[in-house]
């Protein structure tokens, strides 16, 4: 989508997610990895839910995963989406483990299947923000 035509809501980083948003702008999917137990998680929680360590490092994820589940929205909750309804919304399970909310692109809604392999697509929607969507893996 060309930047000047993008009319859907655009999220911006907060302190906890700054590296995630910055990484996306540069075409990288960034995750937090627990320095103690090595498990990956999305930003937003300071403490590792497994080992309770608060020590973390940012790492680049592969950008590959599988379509864990999806839906197709018909209800018009938000006026900005009126022109694109029905559209899909999805949860992708990344190879590293975390599950990420997204949309699937380059695939008809009727062709979506749970567990299909997908890969990240970096969609620059404003100067500030690049959204990470996914497409069927080639």
């Amino acid at each position, binding site marked *: 989508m060309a930047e000047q035509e993008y009319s*859907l*809501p*655009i*999220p*911006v*980083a*907060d*302190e*906890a*997610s700054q590296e*995630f948003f910055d990484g996306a702008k540069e075409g990288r999917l960034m995750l937090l990895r627990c320095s103690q137990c090595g*498990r*990956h*998680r*999305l*930003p*937003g929680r300071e403490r590792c*839910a*497994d080992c309770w360590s608060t020590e973390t490092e940012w790492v680049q994820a592969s950008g590959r995963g599988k379509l*864990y*589940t*999806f*839906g*197709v*929205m*018909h*209800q018009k*909750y*938000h*006026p*900005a*989406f009126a022109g*694109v309804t*029905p*559209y899909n*919304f*999805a*949860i992708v*399970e990344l190879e590293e*483990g*975390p*599950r*990420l*909310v*997204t*949309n699937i692109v380059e695939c008809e*809604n009727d062709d979506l*299947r*749970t*567990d299909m392999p997908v890969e990240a697509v970096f969609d620059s929607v404003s100067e500030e923000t690049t*959204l990470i*969507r996914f497409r069927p893996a080639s």
Partner: protein
Amino acid sequence: MDDRELKGATAITGLGVTEQGKVYGHNTAWFAGEAIRLALDDAGLEKADIDGLLVNQGVTPLPGMGGIDLQNHLGLTNLRLLAGMQVGGATAGVMVQYAALAIHHGMANHVVCVFADAPLREGRSGGGAYGGAGGGYVPPGMSGLYTAFGMFGINAQYALAARRHMGMYGTTNDHFGAIAVGQRAWAAMNPAAQQRELITIDDYHASRWVAEPLHLLDCCLISNGGVAVIVSSAERARDMKQPPAYIWGMGQGHPGDLKRAGWDVDTQTGAPIAKERAFQMAGIGVDDIDVCQLYDCYTYTVLVTLEDYGFCPKGEGGPFVADGKLGPGGSLPTNTGGGQLSGFYMWGMTPLAEGVIQTRGQGGERQAEKNDVVLVSGNGGILDHHSTLVLSPQPS
């Protein structure tokens, strides 16, 4: 402690259900007060007999912290037990459990558990009350991604859960539809139900998509109203106005969700954890259950809950319900008041209220033939929180 000593130690002795649905002109506190007034009248108790109050607030606020100022709205003095409680749709069952434990251990005599909500406003859509787009606001950080990708409301969350089950087990909309059709047939026999016109499987498929794979007829109603129950000791219950609905077993299950690979949170409820203790306490197995009142925010919730109680093997909930066994005349009468799909939506109070009615044998035209063991489930969040109650007209 042998938890079998709790079997039949307490009972539900009062039930108050206000008018439900598009009932305008009252606030949430009025509905709560009206439900409590009706429950006291039903139980044959006076206001002064109440020494415990547990409150579950819906999406519209009740007065005070978590609703506890209802005490003063209703002039309930010198209470021995008071709390606002919240585990979503599991709360109704959970309140009854804490009330039963407190009564059994002598902390209170008659405890009122109440839920009320009034999200509907005349001339305005009620859908936004349960997960609209927040007026277009985009929260900063990762939360903003939900808005950016258009994942709005509880409907979207349950669509994801239902789709995962379909993908894993081959569950279909025909299976979901069988649940909707059966419950509407029950609702047709319930004068208190909001939707009483019979539907067919074709009507189900023709109802509009909300969020695929959920049709409109997969989704619960939204209601203004209130429901209250009173819990008392079995000893007191014997001499009260209504046939006691003895509490045989109770349990909770909160599996947790780490939102990553390996967690089947969309196809697993807390029922396996909750039922283990509840069935042990009641001394029953799943085959002993005569009537089910299962939390049904969506048709899918009923299907997955049946699996998790062991009525059928995991993943076979679709074929299990397909023959209409949950509806009138079927082998497993379920949600006999129409449930939340067709009756009214008062969170966990919907299955609990009908559970009490069936246990008492007061179901009229829709009364199940056999009601020795009645199962009531509650479900909060996106299958995150579960409560189990086993009720019976027999003390033991």
